[in-house]
């Protein structure tokens, strides 16, 4: 069974029945505008779906954008809830995405950032300097997906056995291993 498309339409989410939004959408919109002002070329794309906003950021800007979002007093995205990788498919280019889930405890907002990474040039700057919790998340993404994080202090395998070669969560790694 072939996978359907991963892309989804830019649906306006007010019409969809979900839980009440955390804050008026304007805070996330403000954050996106400020990022656009400070880093002109950083934002590649913005997608909205089921009440959540995803912003695609260029690889070289990700650490600075994250630091800005964490430190700016109007947003204060001080908790990195999750950092993970996605394999979009062997034929896709760019093949991988690194997904960051940001949470602002004082402002009750969540935001998702994504960085697209191609297979040949499979590395992303680390955000360990912004949120130390990214350490193990990036190690897990490296271990399971094979995306390297430049500047990470201790990039080594974390979940798979030491003698396992390859990156199990990639789509071309068989379910039962080699």
């Amino acid at each position, binding site marked *: *069974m072939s*996978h*359907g*498309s*991963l892309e*989804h339409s830019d649906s306006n989410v007010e019409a*969809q*029945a*979900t*839980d009440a939004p*955390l804050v008026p959408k304007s805070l996330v919109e403000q954050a996106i505008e400020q990022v656009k002002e400070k880093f002109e070329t950083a934002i590649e794309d913005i997608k909205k*779906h*089921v*009440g*959540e906003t*995803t912003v695609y950021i260029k690889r070289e800007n990700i650490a600075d954008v994250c630091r800005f979002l964490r430190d700016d007093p109007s947003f204060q995205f*001080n*908790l990195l*809830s*999750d950092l*993970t990788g*996605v*394999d979009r498919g062997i034929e896709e280019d760019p093949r991988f995405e690194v*997904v960051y*889930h940001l949470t602002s*405890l004082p402002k*009750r907002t*969540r935001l*998702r950032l994504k960085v697209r990474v191609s297979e040949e040039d499979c590395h992303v700057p*680390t955000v*360990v*300097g912004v*949120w*130390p*919790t990214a*350490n*193990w*998340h990036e190690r*897990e993404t490296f*271990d*399971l997906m094979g995306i*390297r994080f*430049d*500047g*990470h*202090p*201790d*990039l*080594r*395998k*974390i*979940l*798979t*056995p*030491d003698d396992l*070669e390859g990156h*199990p*969560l990639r789509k071309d*790694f068989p*379910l039962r291993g080699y």
Partner: protein
Amino acid sequence: MSKVLEYSPTKTFEQQVRETALDSNITVSMGPQHPSTHGVLRLEVVLDGETVVNTIPDIGYLHTGMEKIMETKKYQQNITITDRMDYLNPMGNNLGYVMCIEKLLGIVDDIPERAKTIRVMLVELQRIASHMVWLGTHALDIGAMSMFFYCFREREKILNIFEAVCGGRMTVSFFRVGGLPYDIPDFVPGLVKEFCDNFPNALKEYDTLLTGNKIFQNRTRGVGIITAEDAIAWGVTGPSLRGSGIDYDVRRYDPYCGYENYDFDVPVEKDGDVFARYMVRMRELRESHKIVKQTLKRLEPGPVKADTPKVCLPDREVMLNQMDALIHHFLLAGLGFTVPPGEAYHAIEGSKGEYGVYIISDGSENPYRVHVRGPSFVNLQALPMMAKGEMIADTVAIIGSLDIVLGEIDR
């Protein structure tokens, strides 16, 4: 510290340790088989006498590739896999996963009231059961062995309730996308009420045994302190974060499943040490007990599945008598329902912290990618910082206070 490393998938532990240890330090491997590391966790502890210089956790002994398996199974089949992640909080895991799919389908508002009330009741009972294991094992590690038996006595009652509801004590797989698979038996609210009536006595016993106990306080006060800023920076959530003064509870921050209708407090302590985390969880037991009593009052007869025949299996009598229900059953059981393409992240307050589920769907019957943010995985990262400078016996107390479950860490 931030130099780019040469490519090496593993740096041996000896290398890591050599960089941090002096010649006079001993390196001890605690685990992976150890009575006090709460699962198959290996801690490489560098010791200067009895004092811990550095701790390097080594995880992955329980890694079973659950996220990869979930990509090859239907959405409903994956509910059984989520049971096994935090195996002390399966109801919570199921809820997080199922609610993420409901968010993607857009049917969150269609879940009937009775289903939501029962979901809250079972999840809060599960939270009490999970904290019973925490309390029993934590006290056991510190030396108060009889607490273990007292706690498991209450836990037995809750597991009996779960067995009456769904047939399973640990692998419950009870929630479905759209509500519950079937209604709970008539005698279950009576069992829950009986449990709720007796629980305050048990709590009094625990307080008598531990809270004022001088030995317990000496072992836990001032041990393993983590400040609020460090906790947020390291991603610590749940009771471990609330023990440091931050009142972040996903049930309050972003209410789901009707939690905004219940009257409960979010306990917060200021000190950030093991005793503060202990007090937070003890008070959480009381709050969960309050919520369960409120759900008993709110329980009204009604449907337990959303009115979405393309997603929920029809009831058995309806399926046996109506043709369209039979067709729906055939398609749902054989092929499974599809979720429109998209992605969603939904977090619930698991017993250990923020339990987040991130699902990417591609329009087929299997999810394209499922990632579970296990709170214990993130909380364990903070252990080396908390254990630095403490005695090795305190490390045991700190691990207990973090309340880690290896199934969630390793997945």
